[in-house]
């Protein structure tokens, strides 16, 4: 029974795991990814700020600094190749008079890290950029290269791109046991590991890359590799209705204090305004419940920074969990267990750094694990998705509807998403099965009413396609 055997198995379908899978799919290898949840991007990669950081914030000479600056430079091109929403907004670290010293320190740190487009600005420019900023903020570090993206669309796109290049993705496949076949691998056809999932599947592989995020410590333990210590810190958020669009134009950070980075106000690529995150230490890395204290803190602190916030126009709250292992990312080939790479402690700026991390991991694999791996001649870096209704011009719309009238049947009224687009998502490579998964692909249910209007119809469309009862279609 070697039907499910691979040269490399990546554990964890976050932005990091999916980026690694895509990089490996450019080699002549059999590669797969195992993800615990029903979709990729269900961990930290869906619940973050969506910022492509510029890199002034990272301690110099760390992997974080190196990969953040590199990731920022690559972001626009990558998003273009993968058709992922991207917007260069720039970011501001805003300060009152006493904060100028810290702002200057960040500026110099940025220069040391090789960040371009940094400028310290005064009140006049600041007002011009952010008219709603409170007037006691008079200094700022303006990082022009900072941008925003849709984090889950990036993760999904990376996974789809990898699949298009031959990689396999197994969802609902939580790894619960790893047998190390070390020593016996000759008899096992070279396979060093046997993996068992909670869904009772078995996989054989020659190499494991652990990108399991909050679950990474457990995976290292299961494999008998070096202990990976991770601490967990939750971040809560509010998301505004689209009607608040324009409240802020850039990503606004308060000046960091010894207590932390502070709570931000920023736009999303879709036009909402985001308020968060908090930083609350927790024990369970999979606990994404929103805390009430966190919400209160967001209101109190951002109201001191920005005028005209309309708290009655929030449409959603969510929380994401950071996993932190010391000061830097932990990306290492195991000494204890042959054929095992740890990619742990990928906290912020992990979303920005994911792509350089993946290239680095590919390099580690080629130098330490499989020197013979060769490049695929026909690797295709371009991933296309069906154009959204709202992106089409009149002629495209007319033609699309003529070819398939379901593109004129609007299901999600808040975001103007048609039945045709929802079916595109239902039929997309990862075959999403929940309403949240559809939302992450085409935004249906992401608007003011949060699916109150369209969810029944979307559930019915999924149920019909999967030939199950509507009661079997969940939110997650």
């Amino acid at each position, binding site marked *: 029974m070697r039907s499910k055997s691979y040269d490399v198995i990546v554990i964890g379908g976050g932005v990091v795991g999916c980026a690694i899978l895509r990089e490996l799919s450019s080699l002549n290898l059999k590669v797969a990814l195992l993800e615990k949840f029903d979709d990729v991007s269900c961990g930290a990669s869906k619940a973050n700020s969506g910022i492509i950081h510029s890199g002034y914030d990272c301690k110099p000479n760390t992997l974080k600094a190196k990969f953040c600056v590199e990731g920022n430079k690559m972001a626009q091109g990558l998003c273009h190749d993968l058709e992922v929403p991207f917007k260069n907004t720039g970011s501001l670290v805003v300060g009152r008079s006493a904060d100028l010293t810290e702002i200057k320190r960040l500026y110099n740190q940025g220069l040391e890290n090789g960040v371009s487009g940094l400028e310290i600005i005064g009140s006049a420019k600041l007002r011009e950029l952010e008219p709603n900023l409170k007037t006691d903020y008079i200094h700022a570090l303006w990082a022009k290269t900072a941008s925003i993206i849709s984090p889950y669309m990036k993760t999904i796109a990376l996974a789809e791109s990898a699949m298009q290049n031959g990689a396999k993705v197994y969802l609902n496949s939580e790894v619960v046991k790893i047998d190390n076949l070390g020593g016996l691998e000759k008899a096992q056809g070279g396979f060093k590991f046997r993996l068992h999932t909670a869904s009772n599947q078995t996989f054989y592989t020659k190499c494991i890359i652990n990108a399991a995020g909050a679950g990474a410590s457990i995976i290292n333990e299961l494999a008998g590799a070096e202990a990976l210590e991770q601490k967990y810190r939750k971040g809560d958020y*509010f*998301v505004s209705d689209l*009607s608040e669009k324009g409240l802020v134009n850039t990503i606004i950070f308060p000046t960091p204090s010894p207590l932390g980075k502070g709570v931000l106000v920023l736009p999303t690529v879709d036009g909402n305004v985001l308020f968060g995150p908090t930083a609350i230490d927790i024990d369970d890395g*999979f606990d*994404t*419940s*929103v*805390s*009430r204290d*966190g*919400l209160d803190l967001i*209101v109190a602190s951002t109201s001191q920074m920005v005028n005209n916030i309309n*708290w*009655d*126009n*929030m*449409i*959603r*709250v*969510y929380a994401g969990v950071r996993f932190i292992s010391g000061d830097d990312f932990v990306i290492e080939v195991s000494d204890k267990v042959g054929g095992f790479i740890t990619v742990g402690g990928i906290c912020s700026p992990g979303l920005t750094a994911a792509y350089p991390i993946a290239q680095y991991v590919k390099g580690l694999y080629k130098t330490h694990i499989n020197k013979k791996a060769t490049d695929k001649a026909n690797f295709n870096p371009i991933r296309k998705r069906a154009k959204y209704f709202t992106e089409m011009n*009149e002629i495209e*719309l*007319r*033609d699309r*509807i*003529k070819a398939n*009238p*379901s*593109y*004129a*049947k*609007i299901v999600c*009224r*808040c975001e*103007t998403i*048609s039945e045709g687009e929802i079916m595109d998502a239902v039929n997309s490579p990862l075959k999403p099965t929940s309403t949240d998964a559809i939302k992450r692909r085409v935004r249906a249910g992401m608007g*003011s*009413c*949060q*699916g*109150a*209007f369209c*969810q*029944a119809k979307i*559930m*019915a469309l999924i149920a019909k396609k999967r030939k199950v*009862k*509507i*009661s079997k279609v*969940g*939110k*997650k």
Partner: protein
Amino acid sequence: MKHYDIVVIGGGPAGIAAALKASGGGASVALLERDEKLGGTLNQCMHFGFGEKYFGKNMQGTEFAKRLIRRLKKSNVSVYVNTTVIKLQKDKSVMAVCSSVGLLQLQAAAIIIASGCIEKNVQSTSTSVAGNRPTGVYTAGLAQKLLNNYDFLVGNNIVILGSGDIGLTMARLLHLRGAKIIMVTEQYPYCRGSIKNKEQCLDEYNIPLLTSTTITRIIGKSRVEGVYIADVDTGARDSKGNKTLKPIMASERFVECDTVLLAVGLTQDNQLVQQVGLVIDKASGGALVDERRQGSVEGFFICGDGLHIHSSVDAVCFEAEDVGGFAREYALGGGGVVESSGQGVGEAPQINNQHISTQPAKAQHISVKTCSNLAYVVPQKITKGAKDVYIYFRPKTQLENVTLTVKDAKDNILLQKEYDILYVGKNYSVRLEQELIENITLNVEC
């Protein structure tokens, strides 16, 4: 590009009633509906309580819709279903996607927006619910739709947040279909729905209502496992004097359940109103209108729950009929007298339009102001010279033994009316007969 005198957007009861009225007297009317079926929200309302005043008979919402649609079929209104407006402009050009023709482009002389309402959710800070969002959290309307239109009962052990009429009706419906309604929680110290509904939907089946109580957190990873509820500090007010309704966290307690229903109210769908750039009244949350329900751009009329949330579909239809008449009058440009539906609807009668003539080139307006006890008034302005205008209002909180006073700018009392009780979940109206010369103010004193 097709031309119509009037294009009505939205095929719910407001849109149908408005289109029917507008199409009289030789005007050409198109009605556009996003869904494949006309009827709007009524299509998911299998319960009774509709039509007493409009059709003279208590019937199911679905039956009410059927009757309206039958009338529409007999009229010469052009109906487009599976049609969604994607671009509405000030010059009254309409672009829509339509499954049968692709792109539909229309030019109208008057537009009626009857786009209905959407369910509120619970994220705004005063009512935000923390915790998780697993499967098993539904808004009340969604649960109703899933049950009535898709035959799917959303859960077995249900906690309902919100005691408005929708929350109460859903408690009964789900109970009768075999679910256990563990409780209905209400952050205010009183039931927000009508007393009659409370008796018929909760008391009758021994479903507990916990007032001054809210859900603070929802617990559960993939499916709801329970909620935390807490007492609400109903006395606390913010700097502006508004109630904060903060939960008292020390009183937090766990209630096991598999489903949470959010029934926290409705709000206008303002998408098109905003697209055209019509002024929105912050207080009502809908378009700012004059007594004909004409918005800040001439020739754009708004009616139904898309303008403000009505207490009954009967009230919606009476109002919409009048608006249909006004729009026709505007579109045809003549001074032809529009006949009123002439039916009163108790606390929410139609606007009587007999004495309003065609709008002069530059109409002057009287603005209607209100006090802090009222959530909003509609209309927010009245054309000078207009008589017999109904002003709708809704109290901010439940008010008992109050006097409503309408004053002009010089503090002359124009009208006084006493109320034993004003419910938050309802809107009320007063009729102003006299011709008004200056601004007026609505005051409610306890």
